[in-house]
Each structure stands twice: as C-alpha cells, then as structure tokens.
C-alpha cells in the first residue's frame, strides 16, 4: 500500500529526515517510535503534504501513485488520513458542516454521488457511537473550546467518517488521560481491518497497550535504526532510548 524509499526532507533549512525506508501493507499496524527530535512528526507531516516541509530526496509510492505529486486534499481523497497532534480550532465552522463538505468532495473525486442529508446523518450517528462523541459537540465550532480529549476523539470520529485506507496517528496519545486514551484506542481498533493500514507515531509505549502494532520502528536522527515486533516497544519502555543511541554510535 505504502512504500517509502530513501526519504529525505528538511524544514527551514534544517535537514530532518536522512533516508527513511518503510513498507506498509494493507491490514498492518506500524508504530513509529523514537526520542524527541528524531523526525517522527516530520515524517507524518511529509506524508500529509504539509507545505513547510521540503522533500530533498527519495520517493513515496501510495497504491501505485507518486504521493509527492499530490496536493494535501488529493492525498486525503486517495485515502490518507492524518490525525493531528494539535488539531486546530476553527471558529464559525461546525464539525457537521465541515464533515459534510469533506465527505462529499472526497466522494466527488472518486466518482461517487454526494450523500443526501438523511444518509449523511445516519452515517454520522453510527460513527458517533464508535468514539462515544456527543452530537452537541459536533454542532459546535470545530474544536473550539474542546478539551484535549475531545479534540482527539473528534479526530478519530473524522477518521471513522472518512474510512481511510491509511491512517496516520501523530502523537494521538499526547495530552490524554487514561479514560480518553481507552476511548480513542477502542475507536481505532474498531476501524482496523484487513483492507486498511495504520501508522501510529508515538513517543511512549502506553498507547501500544491498546493499539497493538504488528511492527515497531525506531526513528533516530532521521533514520529508522531498528525495526521489530511489539516486544521492541516493551524493551524501549523498560530500557529507554539510550541503548539505541549507543548502538547507533558504535555502528
């Protein structure tokens, strides 16, 4: 589904990614871990098409298409979803209206008819249950005055609505208490299927207790320096990142 080859990227003249290779197949969950400043969020930003990040080398293939050629909206329309670490607050735009516009522009791109109001509401109600989000929250201005947990739940609600092929969760666990974390993780798990894939970007192992990954990759200095299974995450939790840094230094 996704193949990243030797990806290099910089932001504000600073080289952050120094050759990333990653292959994600449908049905898999990949966790990207690493110490602060290792390039985790940069990788997520590059995948979603954020303008400030300049790709200086390498390639990204998503379902046979060159992802780097696509605008952020076309990436979303092709099936990529990014759950943001810091979802922005947008006054004056309700989540409901926003989702309706979003869903219909995606459907239009895929040659599907737009959803009428009734079908939209039915779909919305069904997805609301999944992330235990209240309709009153969705009628309000997008993320405005939402608590940290509400914002993250809203991200997962949007993910449920758009049913992406590849979802990237960027530090979704940051700022969440344990109950919110469980709700968010449950939502994500219910969306897991053999047809889609998920990349979980996280600093801590905590989230991976709930969203169990098939693969764990450790990013350090803009490169994947170690890959393994979920046990690797537990090892990192127990030993910290220093031993990885030392390994890299020795090599």
């Amino acid at each position, binding site marked *: 589904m996704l193949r990243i080859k030797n990806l290099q990227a910089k932001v504000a003249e600073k080289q952050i990614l120094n050759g990333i290779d990653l292959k994600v197949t449908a049905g898999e969950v990949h966790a990207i871990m690493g110490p602060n400043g290792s390039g985790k969020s940069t990788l997520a930003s590059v995948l979603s*098409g954020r303008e400030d990040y300049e790709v200086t080398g390498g390639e990204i293939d998503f379902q046979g298409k060159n992802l780097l050629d696509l605008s952020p*909206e076309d990436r979303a329309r092709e099936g990529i979803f990014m759950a943001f670490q810091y979802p922005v607050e947008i*006054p004056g735009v309700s989540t409901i209206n926003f989702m309706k516009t979003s869903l219909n522009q995606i459907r239009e791109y895929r040659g599907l008819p737009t959803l009428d109001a009734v079908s939209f509401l039915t779909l919305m109600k069904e997805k609301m249950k999944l992330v235990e989000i209240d309709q009153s929250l969705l009628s309000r201005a997008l993320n405005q005055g939402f608590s940290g947990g509400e914002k993250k739940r809203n991200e997962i609600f949007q993910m449920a609505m758009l049913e992406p092929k590849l979802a990237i969760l960027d530090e979704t666990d940051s700022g969440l208490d344990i109950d919110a974390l469980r709700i968010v993780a449950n939502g994500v798990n219910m969306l897991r299927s053999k047809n889609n894939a998920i990349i979980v970007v996280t600093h801590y192992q905590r989230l991976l207790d709930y969203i169990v990954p098939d693969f764990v990759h450790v990013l350090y200095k803009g490169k994947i320096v170690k890959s393994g299974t979920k046990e690797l995450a537990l090892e990192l939790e127990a030993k910290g990142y220093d031993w990885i840094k030392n390994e890299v230094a020795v090599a």
Partner: protein
Amino acid sequence: MSIVTEKKDSTTDIINGFHKLKFGEAKESRERAIGNFSRLGLPTDRSEEYRFTPITKSLVNNFSWSTELTGSTINSIDEFRIPGLDANILVLINGIYSAKLSNIVSPETQVKITRLSEAFQSDKEVLVQFFDKLVNSEADAFAAMNTAFWTDGLLIHIPANTKVVKPLLVLHINDASASQVISHTRLLVSLESGSEVTILEKFDSIGNQSVFHTFSEEFVIKENAQLEYCKIQNDHGKSYQVANTLMHQSTGSKVNTFTLTLDGQLVRNNFGITIDGESCESHFYGLYLMNKNTLADNHTVVDHRKPNSFSNEMYKGIIDDSAKGVFNGKIFVRPYAQKTNAFQSNRNILISESAKVNTKPQLEIWADDVKCSHGCTTGQLDEEAVFYLQSRGISYKTAKAMLLYAFAAEVLEPIKNETVKNFLDQLISQRLHKDF
C-alpha cells in the same frame, strides 16, 4: 495645479453654489452649516479624522460642483428591493423622495412618515426639538455640507408603546446614467418611549457616471424603545458616499445596528451614539468586504454618559486586491457612567499583498468602576486552518471560502429578521465565492 489649490477652488465652488440656491425651509440651520463648512473646508490629508481616506482628492478629481439636480428615468424599483421582504418601501432617487415608487403599508397609528420639507410645516414642534441636534456640523465638513444642501428626506415618527410590525426599507437610489449625481439626503427618526421598529437602508446606483452622496440621519430613541437598524452598502464602483449616522439613547432602550459595506469606490461611515440613560443595551456590528481598489472607512463613537449600560461593538473586514479598510473606534465613558460595560473589537483579514487596513481603537475612560475592553487584529488567512481542511479532502479554494465565510458570518448572528438575514448571507456568500 496643486491639490491644495484645487481643494480651495472646490470649497469655494461649493460655497458659491450654496448662495445661488433658494431654500424653502430650514434656512437658519443651512446658513449656519455653510458657515461651518467654509470655516472647515474640505478635509486635507492632514486632517486627523480623514488621514487614511483621501476623499477630497477623489472629489476634486471626479466632480464638478454644479448644484443642479440630475433627473432620472427609473420607473421600477424591483431590482433594488430585498426579495421576499414584506416591508414599507421608501424611495429616494437622486436625493428626492418618490411617493410614486414608495409604498407605505403600515397604518399611521404605528408609524407616521412625512417628507422632511412638508414636516417643516406640519410637524414643526418635533423638528424644532430634534432636527439637526445630533449631527455635528461644527466638526465635520460633510455633515456641514449635508445640513446646508439637503434636498429631501424623511421624518419617521413612532408613537409611544407601538410596535411597527413591518420593517421600513429606505432605498437610496442614484441614477447616474445621464450625468454625475450629487445628492444630499436626511432622515430623522423618533422612537417614542416603549416603541419598536426595524429600519433598513440600502444604497444603490445605476449608470456609468460618478455619484457623490452625503447622508445624515438622526435617531432619537426614548425610554425602553427598541431599534433594529441595518445599512447595506453594495453600490457600484463610481460611488462616493459619506454617511453621518447619529443616535441618542435613553434609559432602558435597546439598539442593534449592522453596517454591511460590499462595494462603492469610497465609503465613509461616521457613526455616533450617545448612551444617555441607564440599563441600555446596544450592539454595533459591522462588516466590510472590499475588493478592487475600493475603500471603506468606519469611524465610530460610543459615548457612555450614564451608569449601568452595556455596549458591544464588533467590526470585521476582509480586504482583497488593492482595497483598503479603515476603522477608528472611540469609546468614551464619562465620570458619572459607573458600572458601564463597553466592549469593542475590530478584526481584519487581508487576502492580497496590496490590501491595506488602518485600524485605531481609542478608549477614554473617566469612570473607575467599569468593564471595558478593546482589541484589534489584522492578519492573513490562518494557513494552519486551511491545511487542516485540505487534509480532510477539501480543496484549497473551498477551504479558503469556508474560513472567510465563517469569519464574516459571525456578525450576521444577531440579525432577527430571517428574510433580511438570508439576503445578507447570500450577498456575503456570493462575494466570498462560497459554493459548498
């Protein structure tokens, strides 16, 4: 010839024009006003109140100061109405009231509408009390010009404890098909205690020649009266307009104003309200969406003179192309006006590189137990927000339109009349290319 000489010539031309005219009514106030005008002269770029709005330059370049009225061939007002709005329609064309095109549907027990020239015969007492009492001809050249030259206008009187069920829509139409139009009109509205009314004003022009329109209006709002007021300025590109809108509020009264400026070469709105009573509640909303090389200038003064009143002012602007927005908001809280709550905000979004905004809040607070705040912001569209919407599959164009619309539509919220609100919503949506 330098602009200074031209300005001087124009001022002289205007004064000479006055002396050629023969006025039937309000001679005294006219004489006083022309005296003020000749003392003040047209404002220069150094006049503090017109620093950012080069109106004199525009006027001397585009108008000859003939005092002759321009005729019009307009015989239908359908295109200027607000679709679906059941209202009293009052029409002024090139500065003259048209009884033929107007349509008053409310009974006289609810509202009495009289041509100003006639009111000087029939309602002399009301006029002596209120006419030219709020408009300040001593300080503003255009207020003086209007008081000296006004050709027609309306006296609108709402008796005590009466609700005017249907709104009043005043259409100011200037027909510049044949030649330039200079028109000066007036409105005097008196709301007796406990009365309620909605007044809308809409400014339109037709034809390819230039239009200069000064407009003065006075609203006297007595105890517990309620006024909903809306000004819609969506005029064409050769229209220059100076409005002086002054209000006086007594105890327990409520005022909501909304000023929407979408077009016109240069629009200057002087808005002033004296809150001269306790427990008053007032909201002043404004929105200017300017493009091409137009200019909208809102100067507002909110004067709290008595304790325990509340006022909230919110003006927003979206400026595109080489257009310009000017906002100047003064709030006075007099020493006696304790427990005043007065808020002001002015927020602007600049869409293009050459768009400009000059904004200046001025608060003068002499009372010590008050809650007042002001804030002004000018910035670009929030690119983070645009990206967020794009990341959900929404095109850049739609994302931008959604955000601008959301920014603008906030000021429509307090408008109570649904037909009017929908009409304004439509104007804003069209301007911001909202197609979602």
